[in-house]
């Protein structure tokens, strides 16, 4: 039953995209705007093919993903550690909690001038912006999910004799897993946005750079083609990676907290 609804949904979506392409082609054919402002879908397809065959798009994608993984990885590891510290030590939380919140609410691109002065025009500057954009949100998530742990679940753990490592591995971590996943997903989207913003400003390969190059060359079909790639990567991670994890969590935890 579910499967059939899924198929119908897919067909409707395909029809929608085809209709969108046709409408687009139709508007282009009306020649209201010149081709360099609104290129035909076909010329975007050509640009995509061209970009992948001369490897410039592939290199851009890999450069961006490498920076993203590095920055996001650092954020997850150190953001989580910091979150656990804030949870564990009340005084530190009282002193630093608000400070970290203010760092988290700061638009990540505002870190860029500082990063440039510190690290110069280097790879490190971009990765720094990615980390600054996502680390504190992960810290806040880890801290607040640990704080919202069900006291009953913890007491059950204590009652059955779970201590330290057992408690962490078998009770605390799984009980906060659903909210951790949500927080990590949010952290990912912060990291991704920060990366794109950074790459747009700082010209050094990467997808943001390709996008900016399209503008400088006045090549609208290139701009749109790169935007397509960026959207595709966003959806890929959102649906495939985090979507799967969320489905698994939903299945296992069944929406019970």
């Amino acid at each position: 039953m579910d499967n059939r609804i899924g198929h119908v949904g897919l067909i409707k979506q395909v029809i929608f995209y085809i209709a969108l392409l046709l409408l687009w082609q139709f508007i282009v054919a009306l020649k209201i705007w010149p081709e360099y402002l609104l290129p035909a879908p076909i010329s975007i397809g050509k640009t995509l093919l061209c970009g992948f065959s001369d490897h410039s798009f592939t290199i851009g994608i890999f450069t961006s993903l490498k920076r993203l993984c590095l920055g996001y990885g650092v954020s997850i590891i150190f953001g989580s550690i910091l979150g656990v510290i804030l949870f564990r030590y009340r005084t530190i939380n009282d002193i630093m909690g608000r400070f970290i919140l203010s760092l988290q609410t700061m638009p990540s691109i505002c870190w860029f001038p500082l990063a440039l002065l510190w690290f110069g025009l280097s790879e490190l500057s971009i990765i720094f912006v990615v980390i600054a954009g996502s680390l504190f949100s992960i810290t806040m998530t880890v801290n607040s999910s640990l704080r919202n742990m069900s006291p009953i679940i913890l007491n059950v753990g204590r009652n059955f004799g779970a201590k330290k490592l057992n408690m962490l591995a078998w009770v605390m971590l799984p009980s906060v897993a659903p909210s951790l996943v949500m927080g990590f997903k949010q952290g990912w989207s912060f990291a991704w946005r920060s990366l794109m913003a950074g790459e747009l400003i700082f010209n050094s390969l990467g997808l943001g750079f390709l996008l900016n190059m399209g503008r400088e060359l006045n090549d609208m079909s290139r701009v749109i083609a790169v935007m397509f790639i960026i959207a595709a990567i966003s959806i890929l991670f959102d649906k495939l990676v985090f979507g799967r994890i969320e489905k698994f969590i939903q299945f296992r935890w069944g929406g019970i907290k």
Partner: protein
Amino acid sequence: MSDLNFEIKRGEFMCIVGPSGCGKTTLLNIMAGLDNHYYGSVLYTGERTRKVNSDRILIFQDLGLFPWLTVRQNVEFGLRVRGMSKSGRGKISRKYLEMVKLGKFSDYFIHELSGGMRQRVALARALAVESDILLMDEPFSFLDAQTRDTLYEELQRIWAITRKTIIFVSHNVREAVCLGDRVLVFSASPNSKIKAVFKIDLPRPRLIESEGLMSEVRPIMEALKPEIGRSHG
């Protein structure tokens, strides 16, 4: 609560009733060693104890089952933290899942079970660590009447097999009379204390709707009624 002094014999089934807010739940937490904010002492086999220990398992009102584990893994939890081998755990969990009649559901997740089945999982999890004492905090209060009646019979059967000491907090006098060897009636807070103790000598297994039960229920109701009035006033 103050001036509280009572003893429970090994293997006894004792029920505690009292108006809401009189500290029944706190008392269970203290006996389990989960609450240390009290003056006085809890003696267990003659020795003073303040620490939480798996020889006294508390079954919470909303159970505290682990939704991320299967039924079997929930039951094996206490054994796993003790470092027991997989085969050893399997043997024990199978035994107690059979006892609570959930043998077929061992690979289900908690959210796939009905309320009554969840109660059975919580019971099996508590039994699996072979504790001496079960502390139960109004465990059946969220269930429908029919499920509850079945569980009264089940609990008496399991108690008869395992000979656990059970301390059962309830807000329902009939339930307490149906299950308990003794029923303690608490007075309303503040300064709630033991108002009366009733010994129930009815033959077992007892059915909740039996005639004999009603005659035991009445005097306890009489003792409890003014307290409930006080706690609302």
